[in-house]
């Protein structure tokens, strides 16, 4: 996890596009400037970043399902819950599912575990599919995908 770069996923451990499910590991770093402020003397992974972990895991899956034809921009989170505390050094396992592919949008749901206990979930993650703002951004995805073990090239349209 590169918190300051908002790159939450370390690696995908399972991507099943047919079943519309993906699982990823997100290792919370021991050190980060984020923890200097959240909170002084009590470093705690911010809940919004747990939401981001779920959004990115499911977002990559949306990209695969839609053939990387657009950028899945998070547009809404319904029933997002932070159920437990996550600390520096913890390993998160996130499972994202796509429950509906609409025209120009997709709907997902996700859940996250730490040490086998559910720490976060979201019942409806809404993504708008927007055109890639630049060809460079899309091209940069392939290296990024390789770093996090996401088989992106298999799904490019």
């Amino acid at each position: 996890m590169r918190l300051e770069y908002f790159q939450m996923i370390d690696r995908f451990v399972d991507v099943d596009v047919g079943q519309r499910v993906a699982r990823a590991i997100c290792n919370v770093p021991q050190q980060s400037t984020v923890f200097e402020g959240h909170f002084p003397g009590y470093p705690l992974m911010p809940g919004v970043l747990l939401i981001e972990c779920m959004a990115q895991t499911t977002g990559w899956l949306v990209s695969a399902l839609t053939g990387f034809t657009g950028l899945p921009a998070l547009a809404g989170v319904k029933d997002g819950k932070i159920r437990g505390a996550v600390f520096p050094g913890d390993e998160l396992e996130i499972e994202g599912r796509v429950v509906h592919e609409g025209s120009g949008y997709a709907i997902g749901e996700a859940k996250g575990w730490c040490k086998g206990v559910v720490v976060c979930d979201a019942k409806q993650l809404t993504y708008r599919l927007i055109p890639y703002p630049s060809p460079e951004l899309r091209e940069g995805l392939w290296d990024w995908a390789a770093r996090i073990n996401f088989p992106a090239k298999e799904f490019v349209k």
Partner: protein
Amino acid sequence: MSTTFDKVAEIIAETCDIPRENIKPESHAINDLEIDSLDFLDIAFAIDKAFGIKLPLEQWTQEVNDGKATTDQYFVLKNLCERIDELIAAKGA
């Protein structure tokens, strides 16, 4: 048996917290009911699920942007319901 319009009106009322009696076949989802694009995604999701279809929002948007259609054709509710009925019929064909 409820009509397509009844179902769509229920969805809009529930999704956007608009009183059901304010939702009429002649209502324009954007101009009259002031539904924004994000709320319309929620409505589209609910319609897709309820009717087992996929509203072609990207195609409609493109047609409006290209001047080939007006928003009335897709966002006045009686017209939207006609489009939904067409999609249901096409699915069954």
